[in-house]
């Protein structure tokens, strides 16, 4: 571990410890914002682990999330709640692997469309299943409190960071960086690019499914329109891009301001949220192509250059 790694890990551990204290010090409004931030941190950070280096834009987050929600919704009838989380993770990872094997040989455009379609497809299947069985939705009644949900999501985010850190230092991480730079060179250097992409795509698949599973008790009543909202996929993309995907800590830098901004927007203009979401997407891509990470590193570069000439 380099000195820089050690400093990064220390800062990360401290911030997560601090974040874990939030429920002890805040009212229910801030706690609910905390849940939103923790949820999007897990989703956007894991999304960027895959989409950052590969440049494949995945809109499948809602599909995995919804599947996780339903895994807990249905599973809780038959087993203790905590057992539904690893099951959701496995289902999410396996589904991601299947989608990856089917699509990651294709170009990025097909991948975007396919992942968007996937969420809709899964939603239709569940809706159909409910029509056949006659049930409209599912009740998820537990004694799990908002604090518990917050802690679980914060723990999940910490796991995602740990996974990202370990992968970055592994052969897999090196392979991904090479692949992100030049896929042709990667293949000719002996990297099984398809396998690398599939492996990496399983991470956001599993994480989104677990996130959905953790949040199921919060919804109490779940139905396909809640669990599979496509808005979720788009919001994750926007937040990750706003923060920047070039660094592990990038997405969270987008998640926090965007969550507050979004609270304000959806409070003030509840009927124009989709429009404003699209607008913010355009603004981010146009003005901040590398996100806040890009801005920060540019500023740093300028400072150190000035230092060098002084």
């Amino acid at each position, binding site marked *: 571990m380099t000195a820089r790694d050690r400093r990064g890990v220390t800062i990360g551990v401290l911030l997560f410890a601090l974040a874990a204290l939030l429920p002890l010090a805040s009212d229910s409004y801030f706690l609910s914002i905390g849940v939103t931030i923790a949820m999007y941190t897990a989703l956007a950070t894991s999304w960027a682990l895959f989409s950052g280096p590969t440049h494949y834009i995945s809109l499948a987050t809602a599909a995995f999330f919804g599947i996780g929600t339903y895994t807990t919704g249905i599973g809780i009838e038959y087993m203790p709640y905590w057992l539904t989380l690893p099951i959701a993770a496995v289902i999410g990872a396996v589904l991601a692997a299947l989608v990856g094997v089917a699509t990651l040989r294709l170009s990025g455009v097909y991948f975007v469309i396919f992942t968007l379609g996937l969420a809709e497809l899964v939603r239709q299947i569940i809706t159909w299943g409910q029509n056949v069985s006659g049930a409209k939705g599912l009740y998820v009644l537990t004694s799990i409190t908002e604090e518990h949900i917050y802690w679980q999501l914060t723990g999940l985010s910490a796991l995602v960071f740990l996974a990202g850190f370990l992968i970055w230092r592994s*052969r897999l991480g*090196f*392979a991904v*960086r*090479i692949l*992100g*730079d*030049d896929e*042709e*060179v*990667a*293949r*000719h*250097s*002996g*990297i*099984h*690019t398809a396998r690398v992409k599939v492996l990496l795509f399983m991470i956001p698949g599993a994480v989104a499914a677990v996130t959905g599973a953790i949040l199921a008790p919060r919804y109490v009543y779940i139905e396909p329109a809640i669990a599979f909202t496509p808005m979720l996929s788009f919001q994750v993309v926007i937040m990750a891009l706003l923060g920047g995907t070039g660094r592990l800590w990038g997405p969270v830098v987008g998640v926090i301001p965007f969550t507050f901004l979004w609270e304000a927007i959806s409070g003030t203009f509840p009927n124009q949220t989709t429009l404003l979401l699209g607008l913010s997407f355009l603004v981010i891509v146009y003005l901040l192509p590398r996100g806040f990470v890009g801005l920060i590193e540019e500023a740093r570069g300028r400072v150190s250059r000035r230092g060098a000439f002084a």
Partner: protein
Amino acid sequence: MTPVLSLRGATKRFGGLVAVNELDFDVAEHEVLGLIGPNGSGKSTTLNLISGALPPTAGTISLRGSVISGLPAQDIARRGVARTFQLVRLLPSMTVLENVMAGAVFGHRRRWGHDAEAQAMRVLDLVGLSRRAQAPVGSLTYIDTKRVELARTLAGEPKVLLLDEWLAGLNPTELEEGIALIRRLRDEGRTIILVEHVMDAIRSLCDRCVVMSSGSKIAEGETEEVLNDPGVIEAYLGVEEPAHA
């Protein structure tokens, strides 16, 4: 002894165009084989077939007797075929050392950690770039980018090296250095296919040559003999005279 690499009836069609037409040749161990021919004669396409960048339309290519044609590029690379590209391809976000480590970590002979780094430094030393190991590749001169690419292919200890016009675009001094570098590789006993237009380099480096024209092999043999073959001169004259400079 079985040849290191052999092509039998290797063919590539792009729609109606036959870029490589039933090509047969062998490369023996420790041999430097020149693959020459006028522009558009199918040399790069042949390398693409060998390295797996493109699947052949017909024919077989074998490495030490086992068929590699049809395998994906990454499997062929792992079995020991490494190449440079006619237009240099580096990993732009990485340092010189990391570029070379890509070959050391994932190539034919795989290493990791300090081992991979030491190997990358060894080949950087060989190509004369060890002092630039930590430099970002964006800051390199043209010949140095070519050196990095060569080092990346060497780092995995391949059985066969495919160099696609590695000497093209160098000025006279660089060319001399470049030829000396490849001669060193040759003296180390590496097996190389050299696609090249620079006649001086071909004369001084290649044991044998295969000459292509419009996708087909028109001559094969000892370098001097082949270069004096009337059919070869004719093929070159049809496009441009081979540079004797």
